[in-house]
């Protein structure tokens, strides 16, 4: 029983790792405070689910979940072309509300607040993933590939240009860099992996509804990248374990479920305050929060 519970937590950690390192690419490396990241997660989950129910092959659904999220990431970059800082954060926050409104109101496609239930787990190379242990392996393989790919981006010369644009956009332009193109690619790539995480989430939980993709759901992910440290992938992974596991003992104290939820938010707030006070750069951050 305990092991089933820990496997469940590890699966969530795997999904959150993908979600957090993809947000780290946009926020920590690119300096784009994207509060709409959860929307790409939701878009990935819905695109995957809807296509799967139309009989499309799992791998095609999986990739299209990522690419559709990437498309919206690219479109977001067009929308925020001339914005930065707080204004960019507000517009991307608006995007998450718009996405939620579409998911809840386009009932013919999404079933609105009723959500979509009975999402089947994939069969991979002849192996069913109904066993959580098998699904855990699958999630961690995808998380490892995502990490490898994002690490490859940030370690490459392209990654250095992304950081250059974050530090000083005008200066990057003066060196001949097309900063708009860089931001578009950054947000699209970040959204792609969030879409993939959404796909994994939908097929794991087997049920999705718009409430899973609201602004409040992005808070733990932002917390992870702040505590892990901006522009640090290893820090992000460590912080994902930390943030997912730390509130779990609350379940065993004997609080009612109506208290556990808010108590978790209180724990998150306390962690954030303590970390910002004693370690403002998080675990392995390379930048200050500005």
């Amino acid at each position, binding site marked *: 029983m305990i092991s089933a519970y820990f496997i469940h937590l590890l699966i969530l950690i795997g999904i959150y790792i993908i979600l957090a390192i993809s947000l780290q690419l946009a926020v920590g490396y690119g300096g784009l405070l994207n509060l709409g990241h959860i929307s790409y997660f939701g878009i990935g989950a819905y695109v995957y689910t809807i296509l799967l129910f139309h009989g499309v092959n799992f791998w095609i659904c999986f990739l299209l979940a990522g690419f559709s999220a990437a498309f919206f990431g690219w479109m977001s970059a067009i929308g925020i072309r001339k914005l930065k800082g707080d204004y960019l954060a507000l517009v991307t926050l608006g995007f998450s509300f718009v996405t939620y409104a579409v998911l809840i109101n386009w009932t013919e496609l999404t079933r609105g607040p009723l959500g979509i239930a009975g999402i089947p787990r994939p069969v991979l190379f002849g192996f069913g993933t109904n066993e959580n242990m098998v699904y855990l392996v699958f999630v961690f393989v995808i998380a490892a590939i995502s990490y490898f790919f994002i690490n490859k981006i940030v370690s490459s010369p392209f*990654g250095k240009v992304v950081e250059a644009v974050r530090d000083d956009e005008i200066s*990057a*332009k003066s060196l001949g860099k097309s900063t708009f193109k860089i931001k578009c*690619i950054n947000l699209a790539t970040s959204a792609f992996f969030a879409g993939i995480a959404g796909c994994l989430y939908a097929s794991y939980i087997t049920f999705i509804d718009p409430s899973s993709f609201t602004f409040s759901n992005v808070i733990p992910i932002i917390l992870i990248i702040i505590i892990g440290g901006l522009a640090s992938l290893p820090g992000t992974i460590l912080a994902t374990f930390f943030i997912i596991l730390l509130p779990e003992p609350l379940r065993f104290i004997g609080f009612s479920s109506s208290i556990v939820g808010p108590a978790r938010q209180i724990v998150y707030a306390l962690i954030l305050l303590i970390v910002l006070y004693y370690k403002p750069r998080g675990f392995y951050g*390379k930048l200050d929060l500005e």
Partner: protein
Amino acid sequence: MLKIRNIQKHFSGIKAVDGCSFDVEKGKITALIGPNGSGKTTMFNLICGNIKSDGGEIIFSTPTGERNIVGMPIEKISNYGISRLFQQSRLFKNLTVLENLLVSEDNEDQKFWKNIFGLNKFDKSKIDKANKILGDFEIKDIAHLTAGELSFGQKRLVEIARNILNYHTVLVLDEPVAGVNPKIREKIAKIITQLKKDGETILLIEHDMQFTLGISDKVIVMDAGKIITTGTPEEIRNNPEVLRIYLGK
């Protein structure tokens, strides 16, 4: 090389640059001087595309022929060959000195898939090129420091190195020795002198008259957005109008 023709820029009715025309000749150092608020930096902003002009032309000799670069994006102007040093430090503060230089070397780093598949790397030749200029500037020991950790003078040297490494046919230097100590000032003077010997084309703004007149081939004096006179350093030194508006004599 660079021809400015009747360029104008107004800010809410204030004429920051008012119908200025001049030429920057190939292989020469052209200096733009004038009191604070005379429009020098606005002129640089117009040339480099940081602001759009209200009228006039800026004709630049690009590898594909002469082009009016007015209204072009900053990055396009840079890629045509204008490399700018800003008045304030604009290094990428969280990148190391070496990374700051490597980013400036070429634009292959913008090609996503090429970089992901390892077809573009910071290879030995690029690193050697960056290290060589750091060696020439005697700042190789700070290569691993992030730009945010540097002193103002070190930042200035790194920025000049970065501008030289960036593809260019004209170097546009906005107050390269402002605020630096005499030792760094002397070093920057030597660097600019060497650039002149190497045949570089330079457009320079500098408040330090001794420095400017000692290094330039041609001096343009601005006041209240207008060009009041142009000449050799010797002519400018003896021009009573310049002494009046610039030196207050």
